[in-house]
């Protein structure tokens, strides 16, 4: 029972990372209609900036996280303005942006390799809450609690922003149809920049926290998050952050349990099979709206 509960919390914490990354990835896909291959790099770079903020500048833990998050958002804006903005008026659709994002993926990955000296770095243990917290007799790593809380705050925050505020309404309008949104008085350029920043920042947060929790700060960090975050987005239904959050947590729990009780080699297989089944049987995901069409 003890093991079961501990593994459940491990799974939820792991899934929270996937979900946090997925929220950002899904935001770009739903609002801007871009399948962004470079998204994983935002997480890697946020983690790298966070690492150097602690290691070289000596900033305290919360400020370092903030630095990483802002870096993630800033890179997202740079990528959007250089790689996606020139293609927006030309009607190249999903394909053109996919290719330019692959270009940026190659660039950012290779630069991340230089930044970390082609190796995997780890945050010094003294720089973050590395101890255990006991909750009702269970000893849980404090970092896992931080990750779970971060996901909860981000999901609720972004959900409220998108569903209840004027800015959110503008984002949904641009996601539905940028031209008619502009006719309705929405400054779509600002909305695009805001969405890109928000998506980069959320995924950047996942990157920094993931880099700390897994003691792996390198370009491989983003790649791992990207594949699982992508699965979370599809299973959850990408136009609803609640779906992404729940699906991400479920994927994390399933992964940990499969590894614990069945076999480690089946771990990824089950995640991706679930992904494929959802795509074929229920493409709109757990919470997706009934129809999705982009002219």
């Amino acid at each position, binding site marked *: 029972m003890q093991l079961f509960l501990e593994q459940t919390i491990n799974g939820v914490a792991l899934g929270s990372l996937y979900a946090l990354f997925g929220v950002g990835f899904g935001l770009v896909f739903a609002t801007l*209609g871009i*399948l962004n*291959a470079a998204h994983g790099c935002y997480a890697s770079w946020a983690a790298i900036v966070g690492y150097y903020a602690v290691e070289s500048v000596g900033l305290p833990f919360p400020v370092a996280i903030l630095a990483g998050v802002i870096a993630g958002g800033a890179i997202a804006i740079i990528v959007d303005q*250089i*790689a996606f903005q*020139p*293609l927006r008026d*030309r009607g*190249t659709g*999903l*394909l*053109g942006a*996919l*290719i*330019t994002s*692959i*270009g*940026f*993926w*190659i*660039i950012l*990955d*290779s*630069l991340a390799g230089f930044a970390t000296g082609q190796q995997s770095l780890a945050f010094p243990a003294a720089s973050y809450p590395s101890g255990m917290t006991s909750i009702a007799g269970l000893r849980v790593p404090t970092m896992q609690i931080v990750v779970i809380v971060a996901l909860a705050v981000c999901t609720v925050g972004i959900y409220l922003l998108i569903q209840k505020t004027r800015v959110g309404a503008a984002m949904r309008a641009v996601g539905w149809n940028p031209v008619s949104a502009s006719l309705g008085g929405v400054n779509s350029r600002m909305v695009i920049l805001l969405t890109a920043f928000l998506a980069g920042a959320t995924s950047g947060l996942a990157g920094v926290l993931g880099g700390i929790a897994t003691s792996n700060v390198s370009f491989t960090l983003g790649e791992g998050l990207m*594949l699982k975050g*992508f*699965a979370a987005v*599809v299973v959850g239904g990408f136009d609803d952050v609640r779906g992404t959050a729940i699906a991400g947590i479920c994927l994390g729990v399933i992964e940990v349990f499969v590894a614990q009780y069945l076999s480690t*080699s*089946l771990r*990824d*297989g089950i995640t*991706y*099979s679930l*992904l*494929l089944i959802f*795509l*074929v049987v229920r*493409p709109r995901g757990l919470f997706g709206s009934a129809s*999705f*069409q*982009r002219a």
Partner: protein
Amino acid sequence: MQTLLDFWAGYGSTVVFAMVNSFFALSAYAVLSTGVLSFATVAFAAVGGFLAAQMVGKFGMPLPAAVALAGLGGGLASALVAAAFLKLESHWMALASLALVLITRVVALNAPALTGGVNGLVVPQRISFLQLLVLLAVVALVFHRLSRSWYGLAARAVREDPAVASTMGVSPYRIQFTAFLISGVVGGIGGAALAFTLQFISPETYFIGLAFTMIASTVLGGSFHWVGSLIGAAVFTALPVTMQAIVPQIEDVAKGVALLLIMIFLPRGLIDPRAWGLRRAARARQVAGGATQAEPHG
């Protein structure tokens, strides 16, 4: 003659890999030319590659027969994929095929009897340059004939507007299904060609890297004409080699920048039939305009 030999010694392997990549780019083009973005080629290539490698390694099948069988295997796999995926909308289709690529690697890792698992598979035979050239020429000829056929015309119609195509009596489902079959056969052959070129394959051979190389080649070269895939594969394969010669420190960065620049300034790719048409029309207008201007004076 000497310079030619020197070139071959230095860049022979680049030429061979460009030819192998051409198969993947053509496979991606086959579906893209009917308006479907699919990464499933990687799965077809894995089927073809492992099938051909096992046939040659375990049963001593001659190489051409193994390549043909790989094409058949890829075609069968593509029929299954098309039946499952074609009802999806375009965005979902792309995502589903990406998921298929992820699953392909997991399956390959967990079926060591068929694929050698983590350790990979040594392929005892090597495809000669001439064999590869003939194979590519045959495939290219098929694409050339197809583009001039009823199917080619129907494919363009489906790509431009499926609704209009179906009112004209062209079934988008059937055209896209056919496109998938072509993509599967070519992808399977490409997978076998890659196996017989590398002489060592593992689950990592057929993964995301190949998917992105392939789609970048197709779009870079121009996804509106099959020649674009050949040009794109050549450019995309030669790019890292060239960049290594010019800026060895940051070759990957330079490769990414080159990809970005080409896509931003030539979003329809290097080979663009529409641009030729526009240029020809502009020239015709100029000649006609020159004639009318000349008349009052004459």
